[in-house]
């Protein structure tokens, strides 16, 4: 049964929280309305009785709570393996339960992909080590829809599905679906929202050769709650979603088009990899956030979003 989609309140512009960059996070505070937290990065992973457990590193958790004080949180998971037919990572959810009890978040998102599979040798769990895409099929939807609904109910906040970058050609599909049609079917059937990663989308359009404007025009824009923007590099002729550079102009153009057309858009998040901070620098983060805020204000008005002293 389809759950009702209840869009969250607008937040504004934010950045992903980097746990080993306290100075940079403090420097961003005046430019962000919220932080996006990937709680995995605050944890150790341990195996106990054949199960994965995620245990918070107390110093990292306390620092995160402190540095993000007076700003709402949204959670963006990395390790749930939402699309694993073998089974998702229960340890991740137990960790998220702990976090939610400590401090609630406005919504929770995860990737349209899988990290774990069944080892063909012995039937046990196999960790692929890199997120892989799902085929655009009824079976994939049958797996994802109830999981998305379950996550929304578990935390009492919207669950958002994020589009992935992938490099494997000609993903299997049914019913003529491409990624956009698949995302539309997911949101329609589940009542969940979308975290639309414009940089991932741009990478796929470039690498796989489709028209991003045509595809974007078919997306259920009323289900886009959060947008990710980022930049990356090329390798062997492919554009890679390494989130290591400033946002490229084609992505800004897509964002300019999308923001006024997504009626329930709540947030724009600039994403940067921890390891890339040394290369990119704190000033670059501030520039990206300032540009995103100018765009947000231009289309959504200065009054939308939670004001925390941001310009």
């Amino acid at each position, binding site marked *: 049964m389809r759950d009702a989609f209840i869009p969250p309140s607008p937040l504004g512009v934010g950045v992903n929280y980097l746990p080993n960059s306290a100075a940079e996070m403090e420097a961003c505070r005046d430019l962000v309305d919220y932080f996006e937290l990937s709680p995995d990065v605050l944890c150790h992973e341990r195996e106990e009785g054949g199960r994965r457990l995620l245990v918070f590193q107390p110093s990292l958790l306390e620092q995160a709570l402190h540095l993000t004080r007076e700003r709402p949180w949204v959670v963006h998971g990395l390790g749930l393996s939402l699309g*694993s037919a073998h089974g998702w990572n229960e340890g991740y959810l137990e960790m998220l339960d702990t976090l939610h009890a400590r401090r609630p978040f406005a919504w929770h998102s995860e990737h349209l992909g899988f990290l774990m599979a069944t080892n*063909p040798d012995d039937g046990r769990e196999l960790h692929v*080590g890199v997120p892989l895409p799902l*085929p655009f099929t009824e079976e*994939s939807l049958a797996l994802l829809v109830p999981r998305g609904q379950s996550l929304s109910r578990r935390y009492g906040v919207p669950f958002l599905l994020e589009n992935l970058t992938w490099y494997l050609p000609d993903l299997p599909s049914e019913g003529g679906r491409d990624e956009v049609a698949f995302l539309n079917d997911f949101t329609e059937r589940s009542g969940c929202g979308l975290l639309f990663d414009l940089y991932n989308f741009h990478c796929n359009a470039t690498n796989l050769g489709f028209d991003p404007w045509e595809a974007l025009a078919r997306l259920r824009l009323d289900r886009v709650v959060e947008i990710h923007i980022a930049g990356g590099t090329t390798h*062997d002729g492919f554009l890679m979603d390494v989130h290591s550079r400033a946002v490229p102009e084609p992505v800004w153009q897509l964002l300019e088009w999308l923001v006024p057309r997504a009626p329930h858009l709540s947030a724009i998040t600039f994403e940067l990899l921890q390891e890339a901070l040394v290369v990119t620098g704190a000033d670059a983060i501030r520039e990206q956030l300032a540009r995103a805020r100018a765009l947000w204000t231009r289309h959504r008005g200065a009054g939308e979003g939670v004001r925390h002293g941001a310009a």
Partner: protein
Amino acid sequence: MALRELQSVLGRMVMDHAAGARQGSETLAALDTSALDVRERAWLEAVSFSPGFALTCFIQRWWREARLRTGASLTLAALGDAREATVREFVRDAPCASLFAAAESVAFLQHVEATGVGPHVRAVAALERSLWRVKQEVDAGHAPRSDAPPSSDAVVTTHPAAALITFEAPVEAVLGALLSGKPLPEPRPQRFPLLVAPGLRRSCRPVSSEEAHAFTSCREPLPLHQLLEAPGVTQEAVRALWAATALCRLDAPGK
């Protein structure tokens, strides 16, 4: 479509190809794909030869090596010219188990402790692995203690997160060389024991021969009075080890 089987085969193809163990197409040919239909098998076959598949496997391997650079940096430095070959061997032989630096690094460090070649390599790997163990212990809430040793009939043993590592040169010289990129000191005939324990500031320090002897004397659990009566074991050494949380009661392991 058998999604579970499709993911299983694709996942295994990526793992094998990324590890350099065998090509994705070879893995596909070796696996039982009877649960997949003709189109799925044809897709996997085509994918296995695609540049996108090669890139996906490159990314997987790159992330594994990045985790090792984060979590085993001293050991990688100690390996010197043998670094690339050692990492290649580990990635080939040890399947990816996690996205977490600690899990991957500890597995690599165990590998190097057992097989590493070169001056100080195994000792540095043992040190780095022990430091990870202590960090996880402290993060799990097993804080260093400040109480006095227990009664004399309490059964004691070494703390599960404590370790005694024997270096062949002063530890400061070895670590200083690794951190500054200078040549490692030559191994000496003397032994330089280093204690790693949750109760130590910075988690480790050099120890005296008396402390080292007391530590090794209770690897097997025994009553405290027996430890204190053992030849060469001093009360002072036992107190120092207890204060460092290098020892614990058998009935309260880890505390």
